[in-house]
C-alpha cells in the first residue's frame, strides 16, 4: 500500500514532465545520474536561442526569395542569401551547442569515477 501511494504521488509529476519540457525546470528525482540539476538560467538560454534563430532563418529565406524575384542578379539578392547562409550556420551551431550543453555530462566525461557520475547497468 505504501508503495502504491508513493507511485500515485510521483506519477502525476512524471506525466506532467513532457508538458513542461518546453519551459525547462530543474528536474530532481533523487536518482544518481538520472537527475540532471542544471541551472535554470542556462537551460532557458539553451532552449530559447534555437527557436529564435529558427524563426530568423525562415524569415530570411522568405525575404531572400522576395528580393531575388525582383532582381535576381543584384547585390541585394546575393546579400539576402548570404544572410540566410549566416543564420543557417548560426542555427546549426546553436543546435550543436544545445546537444553538448549539459554540465553534468561534460563534468562526467572528465571525471567518470566521482560519485555523481556513477552509472548502474542493471
Amino acid at each position: 500500500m505504501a508503495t502504491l501511494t508513493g507511485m500515485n504521488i510521483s506519477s502525476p509529476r512524471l506525466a506532467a514532465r513532457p508538458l513542461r519540457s518546453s519551459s525547462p525546470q530543474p528536474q530532481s528525482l533523487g536518482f544518481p545520474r538520472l537527475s540532471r540539476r542544471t541551472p535554470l538560467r542556462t537551460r532557458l538560454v539553451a532552449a530559447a536561442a534555437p527557436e529564435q534563430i529558427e524563426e530568423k532563418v525562415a524569415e530570411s529565406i522568405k525575404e531572400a526569395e522576395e528580393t531575388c524575384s525582383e532582381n535576381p542578379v543584384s547585390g541585394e539578392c546575393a546579400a539576402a542569401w548570404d544572410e540566410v547562409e549566416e543564420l543557417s550556420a548560426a542555427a546549426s551551431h546553436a543546435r550543436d551547442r544545445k546537444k553538448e550543453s549539459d554540465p553534468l555530462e561534460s563534468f562526467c566525461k572528465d571525471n567518470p569515477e566521482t560519485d555523481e557520475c556513477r552509472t548502474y547497468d542493471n
Partner: protein
Amino acid sequence: MAVSTVYTTQSFHSTCSISTPSKTHLGFNQKKQILFYNSCGKSTFMRRLTSVFGGAAEPPKGGNPDSNTLISDTTTVICLDDYHSLDRTGRKEKGVTALDPRANDFDLMYEQVKAMKEGKAVDKPIYNHVTGLLDPPELIKPPKILVIEGLHPMFDQRVRDLLDFSIYLDISNEVKFAWKIQRDMAERGHSLESIKASIEARKPDFEAYIDPQKQYADAVIEVLPTQLIPGDNEGKILRVRLIMKEGVKYFNPVYLFDEGSTISWIPCGRKLTCSYPGIKFTYGPESYFGHEVSVLEMDGQFDRLDELIYVESHLSNLSTKFYGEVTQQMLKHSEFPGSNNGTGLFQTIVGLKIRDLYEQITASKAAAPLQATKA
C-alpha cells in the same frame, strides 16, 4: 621576438559544423595563424589542432557569451568575422555579402594581427553571429600561437606576409552541396531549392574573393566525392587530398614509401581486411598554381582502429612524437566529424606538422641570440 603565424582557410560556405556530415571552422611570442573560412573557432579542425597542442580551448571567461574567440594554454583562435566593417544590416543596405572585401576592415585586421605578433594585447571587435551586430571589443592578450580563421586570411598581402603557415580547406561543390543539405534540411523553412539558391547567389563572390586565396596556402586540404563508387552522389565516402607546398621553411611534407616518387597504394588485402568500398591512397609530386607540391590522397573510409594504425605505420614524415600518435589523436576525437576518413586524418596530420613547425621556429629563435653572443 620570434613570431610565427600559420594561416589556414577553409573554403566553406558555412561554419565548420557543416564540415561534419553527422551534424553538419612564445615565450618568444611565436604565433601561428590558421585560417578557416567562416568556421570561427568552433570548427572541428580547430578543435583537433588545439588538442594536438594540449589543453582544451574555451571561449574567454567572463566575457561576451557570443564571442567567437577560443583560448587554450598555448593557443588563441580568433575569427576574422570580427573584422567585418559592415554588420548584417549594413551589408543588406549596401547589397554586399560577407565574402566581399568591402564588408571587411583589412587595415584593422593587419594592425591587430601585427600587434599580437609583436607581443602586444589588442582590443578586438566582436561580430555577433546571432544578432548580426558588432559588439563592444574584447581584450585579447598575445598568445604563443595565434590562429586566425575566416574568410579572408590571405586576401590582404600585408596580413599574408605575417603568417608563418597557411592552410586552405577546399570543399568541392558537390560535397559542399551534400553537406549543406544535411545541415539545413532539418531546418524549418529550408528546401532543396533554397539551399541551392543560397549557394548559387554566393558563388560569384566566393569565386572572386575567397577561392583565389588557395594559391597562397602552404597546405590545402581538398575534399572531393569518392572515385571508389561509380556514380555515387551521396557524398558519404570522401576523397581527400592533402596538397603540400614544397620548399616551405620548417615544413617537411608527409610522404608515402618513397619521397618524391609516385605511389598508388591499396592497404586492404591479405594483412588488412577492409569493408566496401575499401581505402585507396596515392602520393606523388604535382604542380599547383605554378608551385611544386606533394600530394597525399586518401579515398575511402576507416572502419576499424587497426586500419588506422596500419596506415599510420606506412606514412613517413608525420612529425609524431611517438608511434601511433596520429591514431591516438583520431581516437580521442572519434565523435568528431570526419574521424573515419581523410578529412580527420589530414587535419590531425596538419596539426602535428604545425606543432613541429612551431617547435622548430622556437628552437631557431633560441639559437640565434646564442650565436650572436658567440660572434
